[in-house]
């Protein structure tokens, strides 16, 4: 028996999340909701970076685009949240699709730089297109009501976020174990080989960018509703570092790892609030520790020590020296099959 199998642990976490509200104060419910939102962000980013291998730095910008689109459609056009929210997520997904165009020609650091430039341009638009975005001061969104349901806003939003996070977790979980997920990993592990098997690079990368944009957009819409306020500094470079930290700490190329990473990082940030001024230092130190000593993230440690955590697609770290040239390999013990 494997009582601590992945399924059992996740179900226990879900049960705890569902039963939490009556025992939580306003602040704790806020943090719980924040975690759920970051779970969405981390899963979306992990699909793009961990599975499809695209080193993109635009996730915070997508998050912002989702939040701004959801907020502005309400404020500027008078839409209700229930119409603005899905539209905001779709807009972020479309922007994500568009971002995949440079990704077809650029990779690695060049892709990182160009997406970073896009993120900065997005910041600039949030700050300076004042007639629409209200500039640096941001804007308040209309109060959200779950009218026919007997729940107040924080509780309603928490359960809405949780329901969406569970649905999109399952979606991602199925996706990565499918033909589409294998195409992502194929593109990550070898573009030329992937193409030789008929995997279309543009289509596959566009899909990964679009999906991560959609996840970030959903998270952005929920975030704007949770804060009732949208401002540019929420979607800056630190935000991006936060997302990256979550998937690195949780485990690149693992949907479950994204969930763990988001939870750990948010709880840590809240706990560190008690130590004023130390927050950034401890946070940075933690990242260094993970990068140096736990390359596969939390999920790799769990997989090694707990039974029942196998996942279909794992991210295998390349060995320190990679035999590129044929002669180097020719020296290796050459045998077709040690049967």
């Amino acid at each position, binding site marked *: 028996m494997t009582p601590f199998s992945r399924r059992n642990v996740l179900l226990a976490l879900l049960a705890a999340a569902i039963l939490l509200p009556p025992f939580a104060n306003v602040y704790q419910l806020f943090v719980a909701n924040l975690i759920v939102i970051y779970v969405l962000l981390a899963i979306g980013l992990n699909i793009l970076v961990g599975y499809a291998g695209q080193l993109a730095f635009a996730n915070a910008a997508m998050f912002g685009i989702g939040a701004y689109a959801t907020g502005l459609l309400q404020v500027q056009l008078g839409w209700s949240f229930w119409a603005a929210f899905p539209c905001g997520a779709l807009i972020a997904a479309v922007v994500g699709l568009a971002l995949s165009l440079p990704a077809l020609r650029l990779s690695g650091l060049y892709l990182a730089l160009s997406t970073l430039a896009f993120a900065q341009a997005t910041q600039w638009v949030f700050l300076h297109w004042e007639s629409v975005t209200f500039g640096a001061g941001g804007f308040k969104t209309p109060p959200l009501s779950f009218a026919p349901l007997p729940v107040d806003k924080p509780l309603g939003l928490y359960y809405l976020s949780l329901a969406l996070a569970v649905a999109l977790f399952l979606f991602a979980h199925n996706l990565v174990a499918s033909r589409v*997920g294998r195409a992502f990993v194929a593109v*990550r592990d*070898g573009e*030329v080989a992937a193409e030789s098997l008929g*995997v279309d690079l543009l289509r596959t990368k566009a899909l990964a960018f679009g999906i991560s944009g959609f996840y970030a957009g959903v998270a952005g819409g929920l975030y704007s509703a949770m804060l009732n306020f949208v401002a540019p500094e929420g979607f800056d470079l630190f935000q991006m570092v936060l997302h990256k930290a979550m998937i690195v700490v949780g485990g690149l190329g693992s949907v479950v790892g994204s969930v763990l990473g988001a939870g750990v990082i948010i709880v840590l940030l809240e706990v560190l609030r008690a130590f004023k001024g130390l927050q950034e230092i401890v946070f940075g130190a933690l990242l260094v520790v993970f990068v140096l000593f736990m390359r596969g993230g939390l999920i790799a440690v769990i997989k090694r020590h707990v039974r029942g955590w196998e996942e279909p697609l794992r991210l295998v770290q390349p060995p320190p020296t990679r035999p590129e040239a044929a002669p180097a390999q020719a*020296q290796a013990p050459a045998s077709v099959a040690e049967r």
Partner: protein
Amino acid sequence: MSAAVLSVRDLHIGFGGVKVLEGIDLEVRRGEIRGLIGPNGAGKTTLLNVICGIHRPQQGDIVLNGTSVVGRKPSAIARLGLGRTFQTSQLFRGMTVLENMMTGLHRQTHTGLISAGLDLKRRRREEAQMEKAALDALAFVGMSEFADRPATALSFGQQRVVEIARTLIGEPAVVLMDEPAVGLSANRLTELDALLRRIRDQKGVTLILIEHVIRLVMDVCDQVTVLSSGRCIADGPPEAVRNDRNVIEAYLGKELRARHQAS
């Protein structure tokens, strides 16, 4: 000539003034094993890369199964029935052997984003079919027991065999193999020889081998084409090519050819 599954006509390509291929003609009949040999720098790998769409030729045409493939993306050419294997192992490192094989079925399968994410019945059925096909294909090359191993856990030679199987599972009409024998010991070479014949005879796949291991080429190939300095210098059955004076000259040089013939 109507049986040609791949024909290359008057192919020219150069990189920044350096002419790499100058007027290559190649007719490969369905079901044959074609050897492509030549000294280093003759343009063999470039020819392979042009055929599979990585480089675009400046002049000439390539017809696969009656369709011109010049100007198409590599993935589109692959979908038209062209497979290839690489000089160095190109298995996907983050996957098991079985998952690698299932990725080889990409072009025959259809599961899209929505049915994959929602885990629809259609997708599950297709996934089960893929798994079965992948296991069958592994059995064909005798690698069944490695299905659940990570690709990186295999030896160099095992990875090569899986890579061949992964290409075959996509049911290509033609497979381009870039030095399949490189780094293999004599015993493994014999196994590879047998495997290539079985692929031709049982799967009806046309194989084009770039190879430096002349023993394998002479043994297994039906026809051999020799490239030197970007041109075809000989084309014919292995025995004829082996004794062709141009070929000996290209490999050994003029003076040595004289000694070679004297001895």
